């Protein structure tokens, strides 16, 4: 069977979609088709990928307009009677073809205060934690840093507020640190002032595109918003602050 892949080719200055008809077979994913195009028709087609098993989060792209991992999108889930569009994610600057410059994410992470554990619980330097308190944070730590949540978030994608808002990925990262059973650091002021947790208006787009099915909005962002509100906007606390 043949299908046509309409792939974005270009760099920062200029580019266009180009059609690549190619052979497809049972069980193939979009990344397989892109690789076949690369091997047979366009050896310089730039695409970033590593594991091809949904574990590394490298091959993020927009397939028929939807943010997805190319390696986890099966062709039998797509209408192949029409050309399949494959284009780079939009929240970050394009390098070339399907590859974008995601270095901003690495800079943002570095600015977040690192993990700071409480003193060990046992004389041998180890800690004791209940599985139930670990469960919540383990969900957040499933994140593979594919940045699809960043791509779909309108605050970054449409409003380009990269200087004022860290995006769902790093609110989730903050949540994983803040709710870590051993952590003693305080990141609430940074969340309010620098990370822009207030910008999120809970449209849940990030949760919907997460390939790891992490409930980013409800389990991570909303609790952080509540903590920030409790600390900085609680009327009684504010009143007490005035009289202090």
């Amino acid at each position: 069977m043949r299908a046509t892949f309409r792939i974005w080719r270009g760099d920062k200055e200029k580019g266009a979609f180009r059609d690549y008809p190619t052979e497809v077979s049972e069980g193939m994913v979009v990344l397989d088709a892109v690789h076949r195009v690369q091997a047979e028709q366009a050896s310089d087609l730039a695409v970033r990928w590593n594991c091809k098993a949904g574990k590394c989060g490298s091959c993020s792209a927009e397939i028929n307009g939807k943010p997805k991992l190319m390696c986890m999108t099966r062709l039998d889930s797509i209408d192949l009677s029409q050309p399949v569009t494959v284009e780079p994610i939009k929240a970050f600057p394009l390098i070339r073809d399907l590859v974008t410059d995601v270095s901003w994410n690495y800079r943002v992470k570095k600015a977040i205060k690192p993990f700071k554990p409480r003193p060990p619980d046992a004389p041998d330097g180890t800690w004791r934690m209940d599985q139930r308190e670990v469960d919540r944070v383990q969900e957040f730590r499933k994140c593979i840093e594919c940045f699809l949540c960043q791509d779909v978030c309108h605050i970054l994608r449409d409003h380009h507020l990269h200087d004022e808002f860290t995006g769902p990925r790093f609110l989730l990262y903050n949540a994983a640190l803040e709710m870590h059973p051993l952590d003693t650091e305080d990141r609430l002021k940074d969340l309010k002032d620098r990370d822009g947790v207030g910008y999120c208006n809970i449209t849940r787009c990030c949760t919907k595109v997460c390939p790891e099915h992490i409930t980013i909005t409800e389990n991570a962002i909303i609790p952080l918003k509540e903590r920030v509100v409790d600390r900085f906007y609680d009327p009684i606390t504010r009143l007490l602050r005035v009289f202090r």
Partner: protein
Amino acid sequence: MLVIGAGGAGLRAAIEASAAGVKVGLLCKSLLGKAHTVMAEGGMAAALANVDDRDSWKVHFADTMRGGQYVNNWRMAELHAKEAPDRVRELEAWGALFDRTADGRILQRNFGGHKYPRLAHVGDRTGLEMIRTLQDHGIHRGLDVHMEFTVVALLHDGPRIAGAFGYDRERGRFRIFKAKATVLATGGLGRAYRITSNSWEGTGDGHALAYRAGAELIDMEFIQFHPTGMVWPPSVQGILVTEGVRGEGGVLRNSEGRRFMFDDIPENYRSQTADNPEEGWRYTQGDKNARRPPELLTRDHVARCIMREIKAGRGSPHGGVFLDIAWIKERISNAPEHIRKKLPSMYHQFKELAGIDITATPMEVGPTTHYVMGGIRVDSDTQMSTLPGLFAAGECAAGINGANRLGGNSLSDLLVFGKRAGEYAAAFAKSNGTVNVDEREVETAAARSLEPFERGNATENPFKVQHDLQDMMQDLVGIVRVEDEMQRALTGLDGLNRRAAVVGVTGHREYNTGWHAAQDLGNLLLVSEAITRSAIERKESRGGHFRSDFPDKDPAFGTFNIVVRGGSDGTMQVSRASVPPMPAELKQVIEENK
């Protein structure tokens, strides 16, 4: 100093060296945090004795040596068993969140070849937890990180290694990294085979860089074919199915429904292995008086048993065998929920890629190229290679695993020897003077790497040559080897080398994947030759190396490792090096744990 590779070993080395006060450059082949370590599933082996207090470094050491068929470097196996618990606890102090025991300590699970439950884990995504913990700790340690960088050659100052030369893939700009000490932590070479669990990075880069720079490689004939990779649909063939499935009670069956692993239990494991399904089940559920089921024998053996069933016509519809975890619903009430909790990635992977619900239906699995036991020959304590100033750690180094690696020993190996490589490389950098870079060496490497552009589109396609190499290695130097096929592989390699010499690419240097593939191709061809020549030299079967023309283990071959290095005439030289003699007290430890 310079660290090449940013998986578990490279990150751990960089962190250690930085803590020693040395300025560290870290070169990543991909983006930071995406290295192949991320795909490790089952866990990291360390004798913490949290789940079974009979465990100790001695039992772990004896298990590792038995699994490696006693051609391991005993000192590395000893250091690994002794130091792994501290390395795991250190990860917890840096923020890793392992699954917990009922009393709140790090939980450990069963795995093939380990006598007691020993693998600290996070569901079936332990590698992700490990690399993220190291990454997030490392970025606050002042490392100078260069992402998506391809190393073309190591540089020399006389016999000493003086750093590396390569290009950033985004712009294709060349760059020289001058370093007083260099650590290779580049992982494996599974991409030399068609069916592999390895990501695109596993092209034997460190092996090839070290070899070309004059270092020795050992044990290259020992490739681990993991018994359980996905076999269907074709496009996912080779993707790993964690041994944790079997650790949690999953069983292997043939098309007749028979648990064929009971049919062939090797003599040296008989006393430790259950002889009936009931006992095997009790073992997986934590019964300390039960012995482990034969599904948890070492990977080399399980892979061969699966091949035997397939070849005898008792395989599954798509050419594998059945791995069944769904059956545990006969034994426990909340089985589907339990499976999803213990094996979330596997559930997800089969659901999304094969349309199969593993809580209801058996999986189809077959062997996949997974790991190379062989690699750069290093000093056991310092991890320095045979070249001054060049260190190696993790999969690209050799010694600890001998002829076969136990599952779970890789993640702990990365930490134990990553740390050691970082520590001793930093000490080397401090105690040795500055290095000079030889401009001619740089110019030669630059010119060679640009040749594919000069040839353009008219010649060979690098992707095509790589595919043909993978097919050939799979067919002729795979799980079951025989002399005449391997000789044919050598002839085939000659032809592929000639084709590789004329590969061409089009376009410019910015993020040109065809160009990158052309660089990888040279490395893959080199390691494929090393594998084939070493495999021809070892005329016996041991661990991951099985020859149908010499199907038995030969004690005479248990006394040496096979070494390859480049000769002065440019050809590959194969020789033998005696396995270092083990001290009496460690022999005693092995006897006690027989």
